[in-house]
């Protein structure tokens, strides 16, 4: 039998775990969870959530389990094309994931169940929409019991959303450090005092943080004999829903629909670049594309339209926000916009570096697009061209690269405040640096501009 490998992120919940065998992902359901799983199915909740596109579909398979002694069932979930993490999402992606979690909790309560966890990592973007991927997140709800996952919801969703909306969008980056969500005392401390006047934030962040301080180390039964009625549970979810719904963030404080950064292109140059990129994509027909520095996804869309699963990364939270909202409006299934700082990409982290995968672990893609990006890496970040080439080769077999010369206004802007020490940053210098790791398959000048596009293929020995 092919050997199986337990997935590093799946170990905290004794209900079961994920394992991979022969490149296929399976979920083992343990004996102790079987009654809850059966209730999920017999209550009709599973069918309702799957039909709504809220829960990832899975089938029960006869595959041997990874751990015979614990196993009751083996499930085969529908695969997710690209696993992403909350610290890579824009504001609206996190908000949509939060609202989905609450909507699922509402439906679960309606059928006598509750979510036993509400981790943001249980939500993934699948075919353009957020979806719950953990079928083992449900348990029967006993009337009187508070929501066991309330604290987790506030830490994973409400706290970062409140800080991003009310303080600074960049605070979302704290999710990368605090992988079990943001501490509520820290959130309460960072939020402006006036947020205490908003009932939702007052209750779920400020009073919540105070309650945690006040009752630390106390057994709940000893402190209260109250019970949580079904109406109170529904009221809690309702209150969280309106608090999350009331948090908003507009990129740059402007109308997001106007957000574009293609200022220095003429219409002819833009059209020429579009034709060249589309031609390269048609030539290599990639199944997966990573568009690095995708901005609002003008070129990601070319890959997506050619049927390629496209991950559109950008450093700028505003660009990712605008791109995501556009994809959501269009019902785009093939593009996933994500936030990423290429100079410090998502690392492998969590327990034993195994819980959250690094960017590189989630690759390689068939093609990497690096359009109007190289000057940011080589000049703004001082990365030697040969290192840019090597890294891009590790991310994908094919590379569509745009060279932006020093005469371009974008590069001039980067050089305006510093000494030009980049003597090899020329068309010839780039070709020489990339030839060590890539074979150049095509090279075309973008019309009405000094920019040059390359189609390159990674060398076998790299």
């Amino acid at each position, binding site marked *: 039998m092919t050997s199986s490998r337990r997935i590093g992120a799946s170990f905290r919940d004794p209900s079961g775990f994920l394992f991979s065998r022969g490149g296929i992902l399976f979920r083992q359901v343990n004996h102790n969870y079987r009654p809850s799983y059966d*209730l999920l199915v017999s209550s009709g909740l599973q069918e309702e959530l799957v039909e709504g596109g809220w829960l990832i579909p899975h089938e029960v398979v006869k595959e041997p389990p990874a751990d015979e002694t614990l196993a009751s069932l083996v499930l085969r979930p529908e695969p997710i094309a690209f696993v992403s993490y909350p610290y890579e999402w824009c504001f609206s992606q996190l908000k949509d994931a939060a609202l989905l979690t609450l909507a699922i909790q509402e439906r679960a309560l309606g*059928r006598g169940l509750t979510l036993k966890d509400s981790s943001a990592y249980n939500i993934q973007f699948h075919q353009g929409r957020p979806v719950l991927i953990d079928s083992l997140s449900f*348990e029967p709800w006993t009337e009187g019991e508070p929501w066991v996952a*309330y*604290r987790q919801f506030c830490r994973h969703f409400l706290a970062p959303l409140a800080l991003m909306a009310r303080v600074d969008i960049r605070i979302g980056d704290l999710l990368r450090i605090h992988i079990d969500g943001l501490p509520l005392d820290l959130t309460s401390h960072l939020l402006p005092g006036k947020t205490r006047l908003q009932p939702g934030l007052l209750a779920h962040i400020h009073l*919540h943080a105070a309650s945690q301080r006040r009752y630390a180390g106390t057994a709940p039964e000893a402190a*209260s004999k109250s019970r949580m*009625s079904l109406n109170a549970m529904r*009221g*809690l979810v309702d209150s969280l829903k309106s608090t999350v719904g009331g948090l908003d963030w507009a990129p740059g404080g402007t109308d997001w629909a106007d957000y574009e950064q293609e200022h220095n292109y003429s219409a002819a140059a833009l059209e020429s670049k579009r034709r060249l990129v589309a031609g390269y994509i048609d030539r290599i027909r990639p199944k997966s594309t990573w568009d690095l520095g995708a901005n609002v996804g003008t070129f990601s869309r070319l890959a997506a339209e050619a049927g390629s699963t496209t991950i559109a990364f950008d450093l700028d939270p505003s660009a990712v926000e605008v791109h995501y909202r556009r994809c959501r409006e269009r019902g785009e299934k093939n593009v996933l916009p994500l936030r990423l700082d290429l100079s410090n990409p998502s690392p492998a982290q969590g327990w034993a570096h195994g819980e959250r995968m690094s960017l590189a672990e989630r690759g390689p893609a068939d093609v990497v697009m690096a359009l109007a990006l190289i000057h940011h890496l080589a000049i703004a970040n001082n990365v030697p061209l040969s290192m840019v080439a090597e890294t891009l080769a590790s991310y994908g077999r094919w590379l569509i690269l745009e060279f932006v010369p020093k005469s371009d206004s974008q590069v001039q802007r980067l050089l305006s405040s510093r000494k030009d020490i980049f003597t090899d940053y020329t068309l010839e210098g780039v070709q020489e640096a990339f030839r060590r790791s890539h074979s150049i398959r095509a090279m075309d000048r973008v019309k009405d501009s000094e920019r040059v596009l390359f189609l390159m293929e990674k060398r076998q020995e790299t």
Partner: protein
Amino acid sequence: MPDPGLMSILGRGILTAPPAYLDPGSGSFLLQLLLAGILGGLFVLRTQWAKVKGFFQRIFTRGGRKPDEHDQ
């Protein structure tokens, strides 16, 4: 509302939840219990108000209003 039959099974303890693996946090548990009355009350008021509004909407709007796809 949950199925009454199902709730009676749960109530008799035939099918109970396995012990939670997540630490709910004492402060988080108690805050919910503290707020339970207010949250429950507001929820009842809101749903009753929606019913009253729906009643008058049905009277004054021919054919009534179709519920929102994402109404929960």
